[in-house]
């Protein structure tokens, strides 16, 4: 078997992104949708770090730092919205939030 190359990391990053995307599409629990979003961001992070390591340029790693900051912020705000929503509608399932539908 050949040794690990940057392409392996790119394929892995794609797989993580695809799994996260699938989770966002098929799950109805909004908590799990948020978790799947985190997984997608992680896939992107793997690609960025591997590009950064391959080209011996630190910019990619610094961007991963900023992505982590934004992801943590997003989770905090998203979960606060979820709690507010739960207080109003007693549910975290996406099919129950249909006020704008019809």
């Amino acid at each position, binding site marked *: 078997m050949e040794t690990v190359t940057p392409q392996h990391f790119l394929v892995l990053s794609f797989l993580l992104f695809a799994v996260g995307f699938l989770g966002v599409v098929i799950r109805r629990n909004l908590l799990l949708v948020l978790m*799947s979003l985190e997984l997608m961001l992680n896939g992107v992070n793997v690609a960025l770090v591997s590009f950064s390591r391959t080209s*011996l340029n630190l910019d990619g790693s*610094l961007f991963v730092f900023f992505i982590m900051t934004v992801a943590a912020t997003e989770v905090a705000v998203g979960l606060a919205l979820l709690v507010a929503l739960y207080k109003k509608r007693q549910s*975290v399932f996406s099919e129950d939030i249909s006020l704008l539908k019809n």
Partner: protein
Amino acid sequence: MNAVDILFYFFATLSVGGGLLMIMSRHPVPAALFMIISLVSVAALFVLLEAFFLAILQVLVYAGAVMVLFLFIIMLLDVGPDGGKVSRIKVISGLAGCLSFGILVVLLLQFSGIGSAESGSWQEIQTTEQVNGDSLLFSTSLKNFGYGLFTKYMLPIQVAGFLLLAAMVGVIVLSKKSLTSGGTE
């Protein structure tokens, strides 16, 4: 096949498998625990890529803070298992989206030169210098990280700090408003 390859395949399987188990589990608590497995394996992959600081950050921020927040909210809301079946059309459309994105990735690897011979190998890290002309050099040391953050990325890091402040204020306002809904306002 040396030790690095074995570690790569082990942690790659663990991260993707953890993700798959996460999106398949009906109950949110096992899902969160599988997610932690996936995130820690990604941290191990960062170690394999010699980005040690990012690996530590991944464990602290994601597997630590973010997942604890998720588990706390699951406990607070007492979310039960996901009842009912997943609709077929959603699964099909999700798989179709993944497939088309996969084709895009394969074509990119095939024709963009990322998969060519000279860029397909790992170069040695030079630890002596921080900058080479206009670009920051990749390094395992934390010093280069801080140097990059506070020179080239000074404005983005200020914006990130402001974003954190805005998020904090926003979360406080959100939780206050839902407490006093139907109040005087």
